């Protein structure tokens, strides 16, 4: 009977981690729906980007207020996780504060956890105020209606509750230590929760133990629930920011990839010795689809981008099209992409891993042409993203599909392209007049 708590703990832990592993597997499968792309180049630069951008949060602080608050929550959660390790060991072996023999170091650790927890609470409250009272523009855009708004707040509530439970647990523990309760040896320093402890004054030992145990159990269960909530929320960035910045675009932002499949075709067209009437070789693969109309046409890095997006909206607030009231929002491009991946994922789950055509696609059913054509390709969204997401590459791939597979460019652009084809300039000028300016010198 003595081992009952240990067993219950192990079961909760196993279920929590097991379900999480399951989510990660699904995530991996879904990301791999994207096309393969070689990102094995330039590893030192990639590690550097990851360290600087994800670990070092260099792009977060471009906006100082949000950046500073975010660093508090970020550091808080990483450091406080050392405490989670202790909780897990205690839970499995039925010990209490197993790290206590560390002495002064332990005092220091617990003290820093407590101060960080308090700072996290302050930051989370300020974040909530920014979203719900100040109502910053980027949090109330049309794509944030409904679930995305609830999701954002829910994450803040969970974080707040977890921190409060942590401090309550410590406060009760501190009180028990003061009373010299068995099992609660004096350990740790409690710069924050000692001020909560007076609330518990006059409570009996057994009541205090119930308070302490309840907070302890709720805290660890809450962490496991939060871990499993990640996959269903926008909050996956706490894990995916790292691979995403690693696999992010290298080199100048203005460099767009050249489509190899097109290069082959163009070379053939320009080759005077190629036989235009030759039948394709027997073993020739089907001609590749140009551009993207659905998530399977995007690369897996672009799909990873979509799962990494935490809907902060910095991209959208920097977007010239969005700023001037156009429908385009780079954040919506990422949210739509993710929603469509999830839809395809559920389709796979329902059909034993085989995708059954659902008559839908990313283009038109999620992202409209009006959005795609409003982009100026200025890279402001790419620059603004704190975790190296590239919404522009998805817009460009979808434009390629519209133009090369559907010939569905706006008529003005068709005129421009016809001009380039006919006379080598986007306007209908005579190629022979190119040097006329020389006469005016």
């Amino acid at each position: 009977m003595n081992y009952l708590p240990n067993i219950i703990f192990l079961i909760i832990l196993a279920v929590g981690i097991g379900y999480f592993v399951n989510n990660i597997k699904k995530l991996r499968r879904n990301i791999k729906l994207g096309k393969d792309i070689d990102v094995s180049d330039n590893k030192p630069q990639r590690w550097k980007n990851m360290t600087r951008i994800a670990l070092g949060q260099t792009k977060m602080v471009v906006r100082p207020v949000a950046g500073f608050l975010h660093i508090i929550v970020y550091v808080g959660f990483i450091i406080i996780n050392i405490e989670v390790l202790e909780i897990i060991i205690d839970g499995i072996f039925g010990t209490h504060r197993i790290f206590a023999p560390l002495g002064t170091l332990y005092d220091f650790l617990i003290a820093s956890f407590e101060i960080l927890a308090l700072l996290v609470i302050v930051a989370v409250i300020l974040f909530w105020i920014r979203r719900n009272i100040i109502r910053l523009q980027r949090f109330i855009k049309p794509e944030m209606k409904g679930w995305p708004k609830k999701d954002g707040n829910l994450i803040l509530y969970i974080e707040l509750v977890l921190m409060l439970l942590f401090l309550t647990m410590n406060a009760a523990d501190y009180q028990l230590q003061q009373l010299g309760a068995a099992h609660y040896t004096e350990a740790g320093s409690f710069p924050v929760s000692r001020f909560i402890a007076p609330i518990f004054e006059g409570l009996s030992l057994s009541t205090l133990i119930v308070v302490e145990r309840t907070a302890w159990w709720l805290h660890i269960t809450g962490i496991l629930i939060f871990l499993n909530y990640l996959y269903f929320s926008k909050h996956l960035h706490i894990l995916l920011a790292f691979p995403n910045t690693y696999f992010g675009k290298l080199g100048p932002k203005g460099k767009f990839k050249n489509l190899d499949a097109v290069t082959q075709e163009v070379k053939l067209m320009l080759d005077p010795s190629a036989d235009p009437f030759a039948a394709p070789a027997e073993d020739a693969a089907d001609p590749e689809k140009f551009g993207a109309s659905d998530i399977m046409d995007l690369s897996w890095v672009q799909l990873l981008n979509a799962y990494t997006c935490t809907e902060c909206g910095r991209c959208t607030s920097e977007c010239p099209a969005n700023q001037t009231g156009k429908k385009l929002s780079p954040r919506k491009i990422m949210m739509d992409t993710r929603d469509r991946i999830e839809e395809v994922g559920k389709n796979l789950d329902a059909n034993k891993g085989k995708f059954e055509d659902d008559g839908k696609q990313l283009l038109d059913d999620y992202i409209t042409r009006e959005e795609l054509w409003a982009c100026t390709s200025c890279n402001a969204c790419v620059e603004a993203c704190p975790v190296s997401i590239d919404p522009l590459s998805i817009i460009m791939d979808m434009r390629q599909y519209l133009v090369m597979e559907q010939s569905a460019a706006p008529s003005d652009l068709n005129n421009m392209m016809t001009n380039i084809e006919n006379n080598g300039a986007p306007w209908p000028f005579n190629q022979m007049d190119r040097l006329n300016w020389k006469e005016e010198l």
Partner: protein
Amino acid sequence: MAELFAAGQQPDVLFWVGCAGSFDDRAKKITKAFVKILNQANVSFAVLGTEESCTGDPAKRSGNEFLFQMQAMTNIEVMNGYEVKKIVTTCPHCFNTLKNEYPGLGGTYEVLHHTQFLKQLLEEGKISIEGGKFKGKRITFHDPCYLGRANGVYEAPRELIRKLDAELVEMKNCKKQGLCCGAGGGQMFKEPEKGDKDVNVERTEQALETQPEIIAAACPFCNTMMTDGVKSKEKEASVVVMDIAELIANAEDL
């Protein structure tokens, strides 16, 4: 270029004029200003003239990869034929495409934007810039997306403006956070999507907030967009939009 090559001569640099610089009346003035500076500095340069064709940039950003690569490969064939090593251009779109997207298709050159090239000339003592009529003027610089964010060139144009003894004032969105003029990605050639206002008007408003006498540009398309913006704000009597090359050529009274 053809004439020089036939005579067995190789210029130091090819000046890629670009479609706007060749055909657009406003942009032609930039071309002429830049050529005057090149001549003044005794730079050995050539142009492709009627053998130059669109780099394919507007086609690529509009999604027509076919047309882009056709243009690119034709241009590369011409330039490789003339053994071109170094290119300078007054258009950031040409600059970006030639520098970043041509190497993968067989055209590898040293490519400079004219502001970088002018800065080099200045450092080598081949040109001198003195404020002259621009001394003390309030000038704000509009970062072209394809020069700034796309390729990280922020300082060359600014250094040239400072050399004019002018007062360089920055807009609230500048450098990495620079706001687009609204022309990129093929927008130059089409009507904008429905919205509250045009991008160039928004950007012009930002520029006018700095109370400038001159809005300096470094891209023929930005130049057009900002000029239109200034007109729509009815400020053309007090604010002019000028390319950096024009500023320098005018300061020198070329």
